């Protein structure tokens, strides 16, 4: 099966091509089916590749496809690297992608650009698989940009809405800022090692001075913070919720936004060269986790809460990377992919059932109307809140244990964030599914009452159920007492084995786990007392948090507006008056001094030009005739 690894990106790419060229003629039903099947087949190939790989003793397989950019010493191939890390990624990426394609067939029903939606979605999956399977940085960058542009298209899918168009643009530009980091990292690495191939870079890691290693990792971190929505580039992700909900689930929760974490994990041998860079990564991750969690407590749009929650959870992953706990980061990434996709699809089901309403102030009591959505959302809620024995208890606990060992201060911040997580997710859950049925009343701003909600069709319910089962089972891949035949032993070769030190004494582990569980329960209980009865409590949702710490306003003041002014000034003054003014002035001066000559000449460019043409053409023809 390893020999057909190229099929992984090729199948969705083929789906993309078919749908892009013939989608409109095929019709909606066929388009959706083709798109879903292409990705589903890719998942089957991923399973085959996985079993083939674990049957081998050498778990590092490179598949060369063709030479892409060969110039001098820069030789970039299109080649795939199948190893435990990339296989872990492709398994959950293709599985969740398949479910979300299936869900989209129902959710996007009746949309004008239904076929186009699947065009983008298939291209996205192809790009994401290329990103994780590439054997060199530049090819990863191809996938990286591919998922970015699909995200741009899908966020601004409802292009007639100005907010959607702006959000798509914002997502792309924030990512581009991050891309500068990736490009500079590549340049530095190429300058140092003469290659962009992962395995060759790692083999030559001795060539990095500590300063170069620091700069490379910081540049990569900038890129990761763009893609994975971390400080200072996190604030595009909440806006990206303008896209259709399946997109939020797939791209802006489960897969694309974790690409930054994947890249940092992939580059682990270089990260390990610079402890200064690792501390920076850990601080960025912890700070992002905390800031986003505080913001999530005060949002009233169901998708915005989940978006900030995603930012916060990825913050944990980055914190884990900064602590050297790469496997914990991957473990959390996989678990998060399941429960966060489930949360988003559940939210989509709620929005679908309420005719597009997204404000949790106007929900409540949906438990009775949407039992399937309720039950699956309940599992996702317990999973993310960190209640034992659900997924986040194990995976976030694993992260926090490692942080405790390395940076005790950040462990405290991580614990506070865990408390906030349990709190804001519980608030969301109570306001949406329990309490009074507020949708049947007029809204706070006089909106008319909403019609009675309805449960979603089976194409949407089935993915919810499968993801709920997945969310429960996913933690089995890495339970603390099975470290000999699970994710840790599988991934260890990629992270040099020795990086994953065994935990401290069993008693300390139990103590830490207990603290995690207690914190989760406190968050849930506190939220229950506060939000059980009342949906609107301005004191607990301050403007500072509602407005995301005024982060956007800050950027607008120090970057956006000055740049706009500078740009207009460049156009209207520098270019028009100064540079062109100088040219015209010189021209006028020359004309005046030549006015004497002018009297004896016609002064017309036109006639000069004609005579000149005739002359040159005659001369050239003469030359030609003489020459042959």
């Amino acid at each position, binding site marked *: 099966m390893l020999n057909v690894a190229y099929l992984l990106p090729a199948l969705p790419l083929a789906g993309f091509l078919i749908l892009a060229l013939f989608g409109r003629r095929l019709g909606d039903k066929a388009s959706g089916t083709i798109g879903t099947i292409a990705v589903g087949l890719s998942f089957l190939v991923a399973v085959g590749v996985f079993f083939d790989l674990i049957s081998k003793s050498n778990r590092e397989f490179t598949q060369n496809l063709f030479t*892409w950019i*060969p110039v001098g010493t*820069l030789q970039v191939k299109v080649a795939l690297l199948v190893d435990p890390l990339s296989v872990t990624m492709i398994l959950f990426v293709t599985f969740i992608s398949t479910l979300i394609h299936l869900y989209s067939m129902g959710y996007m029903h009746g949309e004008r650009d239904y076929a186009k939606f699947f065009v983008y979605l298939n291209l996205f999956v192809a790009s994401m698989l290329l990103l994780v399977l590439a054997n060199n940085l530049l090819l990863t960058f191809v996938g990286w940009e591919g998922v970015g542009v699909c995200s741009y298209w899908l966020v601004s899918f409802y292009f*007639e809405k100005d907010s959607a168009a702006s959000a798509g643009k914002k997502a792309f530009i924030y990512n581009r800022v991050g891309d500068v980091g990736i490009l500079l990292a590549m340049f530095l690495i*190429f*300058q140092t090692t003469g290659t962009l191939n992962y395995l060759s870079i790692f083999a030559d890691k001795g060539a990095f001075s500590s300063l170069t290693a620091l700069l490379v990792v910081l540049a990569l971190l900038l890129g990761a913070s763009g893609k994975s929505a971390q400080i200072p580039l996190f604030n595009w992700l909440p806006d990206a919720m303008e896209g259709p909900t399946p997109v939020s689930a797939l791209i802006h929760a489960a897969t694309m936004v974790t690409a930054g974490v994947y890249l940092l994990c992939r580059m682990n041998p270089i990260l390990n060269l610079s402890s200064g860079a690792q501390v920076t990564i850990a601080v960025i991750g912890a700070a992002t986790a905390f800031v986003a969690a505080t913001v999530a407590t005060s949002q009233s749009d169901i998708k915005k809460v989940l978006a900030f929650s995603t930012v916060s959870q990825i913050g944990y992953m980055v914190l884990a990377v900064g602590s050297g706990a790469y496997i914990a980061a991957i473990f959390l990434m996989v678990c998060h992919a399941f429960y966060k996709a489930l949360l988003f699809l559940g939210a989509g089901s709620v929005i679908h059932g309420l005719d597009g309403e997204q404000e949790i102030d106007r929900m409540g009591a949906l438990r009775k109307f949407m039992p399937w959505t309720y039950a699956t959302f309940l599992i996702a809620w317990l999973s993310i809140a960190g209640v034992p024995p659900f997924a986040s208890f194990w995976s976030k606990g694993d992260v926090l244990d490692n942080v405790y060992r390395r940076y005790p201060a950040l462990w405290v911040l991580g614990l506070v964030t865990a408390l906030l997580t349990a709190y804001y997710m519980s608030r969301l859950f109570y306001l949406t599914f329990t309490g009074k049925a507020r949708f049947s009343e007029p809204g706070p701003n006089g909106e008319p009452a909403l019609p009675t909600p309805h449960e979603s069709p089976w194409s949407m319910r089935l993915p919810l159920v499968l993801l709920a089962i997945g969310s429960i089972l996913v933690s089995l891949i890495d339970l603390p007492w099975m470290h000999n035949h699970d994710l840790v032993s599988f991934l260890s070769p990629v992270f040099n084995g020795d990086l994953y030190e065994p935990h401290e004494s069993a008693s300390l582990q139990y103590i830490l786990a207990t603290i995690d569980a207690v914190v989760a329960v406190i968050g849930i209980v506190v939220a229950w007392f506060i939000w059980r009865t009342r949906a609107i409590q301005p004191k607990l949702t301050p403007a500072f948090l509602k407005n995301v710490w005024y982060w956007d306003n800050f950027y607008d003041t120090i970057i956006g507006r000055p740049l706009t002014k500078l*740009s207009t000034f460049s156009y209207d003054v520098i270019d028009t008056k100064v540079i062109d003014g100088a040219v015209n002035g010189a021209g006028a001066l020359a004309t005046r001094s030549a006015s004497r000559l002018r009297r004896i000449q016609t002064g017309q460019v036109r006639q000069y*030009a004609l005579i000149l043409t005739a002359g*040159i053409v005659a001369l050239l023809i003469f030359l*030609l005739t003489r020459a042959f």
Partner: protein
Amino acid sequence: MTHYLTQSSFPYVAILLLVPLIGSIAVALLHDAQKAAIRWVGLAASLVTLGVAVALLIAFKASDGGYQFVTQHTWASTLGISWLTGVDGISLFMILLTALLIPIVLLGANEERRTKSFVAWMLLLEVGCIGAFVSLDLVLFFLFFELTLIPSYFLITGWGGANRAAAATKFFVYTFFGSAFLLVGIIYIAAVHASQTHHLTFSLLALQGTHLSGVAGMLVFIAFTFAFAIKAPIFPFHTWSPDAYAEAPTGASIVLSAVLAKLGTYGILRFDLTLFPHASKVAAPVLLTLAVIGILYGAFVACAARDLKRLVAYSSVAQVGFIVLGTFAFSTQALTGAVLLMLNHGIITAGFFLLIGWLVKQRGSFRIADLKGLQGPAPIMAAIFTIVMLASIGLPGLNGFVSEYLVLIGTFVVHQWWAAIATLGVVAAAMYLLWAYQRVFQGKAEGANAKIRDLSWAERGVIAPLIALIIFLGVFPKPVLDRIEPTVNRVLDEMVVANCPPHLLCSTSPVTMPGANMPGATK
């Protein structure tokens, strides 16, 4: 140092020049009313030229970095002017680009009014451009270089917008002014060479050996570079271009920006680097700085541009910045990237101007404020515009990325800081293009904008080759790179890069020329 020249039994170059020239004359002889005949003759001539250019590409030996298909005939030995033409990996793709774009212009951007003159001037412009790209004699180059000016001038004044007269005059006078310096420079270097060897010649190959003192070399370098900087146009000599591109009819905008302007960067590559290697190296920091300023400044101004054509014009200033950056970095990757970018930028801007032209034809305006929500009524046009836009932004998988990346990484290994700052240009390009896209194509279309019809099948067919190239050169640029790199290595070898530390990637191995059968001028 020996120059390797290969001849060919088939006179590709002469045919490349004669076919459009004959076509131009034939069209001129037709009667104004014979529109169909005019179109067919023009199209046939341009298509035959394209066919010959493709044959040239096939006959071109990829690994041979020297000049191929060389023809040399002395014309007036007393004057030292000779008919010396040839093709190498740098000019090859410029010739192909020219030959590709002229039929596209004649199919997609022909003028209804006075079609005869339009087609005749367009074909003459093709002669001028191809002629300049194949000339290896400085006077011959100069003649073709000037020849391009005239059709351009008449194309702008004949079919341009409201302010066409002012724009055309500015274009003509400004570039003509620059070429006066070029002419002086050419005569000077030939005179110095003659005094050293008692042999008057304008052959590039012979003049390459000319020894110039530091100051004189720098002055002649400046004279050449000034002319080319205006043509390219390099910041701050660019102000003719926004007006000229905006006022010119679509066809002329395409050829002006995609091909004609390339004569500037081509001239630098072909003549500055080979004739004045020392001055080029001394002046490199200045040019690199201008390049980086151009990249950022062009992007800044493009953000504030109020119409689509000026936006593309300023984005071209930024792209030319990348070409100049790659040229003066003197590394294999950067220079290869610069040559590839000349081709890619030509394809991309041609795509832009073609689409804008079709839009103007329907909507009567290319002002951004007049347009809105076009993606609704014209999804195919929006999709094709998006592909061109993303190629220009430098999305991997499309052609623009490969060249930009090569320029940046090749520059970085020798001049970290310039490259690092230039890298910011990738953000800026996304800003102005996506913002323009949002204002023009997104939002809700109303009024005249809602009535736009989508691209016809004919229009899709015309732009299809450009889109195909954008994708092909993004996914599989190897065949092109394989043909550019040997020439680039030859140019860098000839510069005999002094004091070259080993990590600078300057190739030291002699360029091998399989199939070379005619050792040419030696120095």
